[in-house]
């Protein structure tokens, strides 16, 4: 009877880790860019790897991630990476002030009511979603610490190589 235990645990382990491997289509969205107010849709980025980041000016780890997002945008944009940073700030002046200071080269989109954040079931800020070239959600990451950079970059590289 006990000889079957390892098989049972192996099966259990595979079953429990299944959701991690399963990819699902990323929820579609249309949002205006900031400050130009040009409508962008997730479908426009089909064929590219999308690094979708939800942030706000009042969230310290979000601010900390900006120089790094600029770095990866510069490094991988020609290989097919699009960085879209969705701000959930309600006041435009706060975003303007922050953007003037940081001058990001990637796309900033504005979701003041949090409607897109809700469809992505955001639990904390910042939350990052990695979407593959076929529009499938392949990774979710919450928070931003210096030690996260390596893992995030490896995940981006893996998707770009596919």
């Amino acid at each position, binding site marked *: 009877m006990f000889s079957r235990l390892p098989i049972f645990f192996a099966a259990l382990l595979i079953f429990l880790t299944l959701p991690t491997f399963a990819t699902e289509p990323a929820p579609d969205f249309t949002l205006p860019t900031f400050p130009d107010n040009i409508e962008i849709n997730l479908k426009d980025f089909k064929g590219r790897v999308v690094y979708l980041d*939800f942030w*706000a000016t*009042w*969230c*310290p*780890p*979000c601010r900390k991630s900006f120089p790094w997002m600029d770095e990866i945008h510069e490094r991988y944009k020609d290989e097919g990476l699009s960085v879209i940073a969705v701000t*959930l*700030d*309600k006041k435009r002046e706060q975003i303007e002030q922050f953007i003037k200071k940081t001058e990001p080269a990637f796309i900033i989109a504005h*979701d003041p009511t*949090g409607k897109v*954040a*809700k469809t992505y079931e*955001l*639990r*904390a*800020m*910042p*939350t990052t979603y990695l979407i593959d070239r076929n529009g499938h959600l392949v990774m979710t990451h919450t*928070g*931003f*610490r210096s030690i996260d950079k390596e893992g995030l970059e490896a995940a981006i590289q893996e998707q770009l190589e596919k």
Partner: protein
Amino acid sequence: MIKTLLFSTFISLVLSACSLEPVQPWDRDLLAQQKMQLVADPLEIYLDEHTYFSKEASSGGQGVGGGGCGCN
């Protein structure tokens, strides 16, 4: 009988309205401000947490992080 039924319906309706909606992460801009912390002085928080962590480390210490903004 009808009075009791009406009363219990009224009470259950009133009580069901008591549930609180959790604050969404993107609505925590005011809660994330320094003045909204229970203790506004960062040094005092640091010292208190250090003592707490040292004393309660065996049961997880400061296992749950965050000061309201939901960032980490």
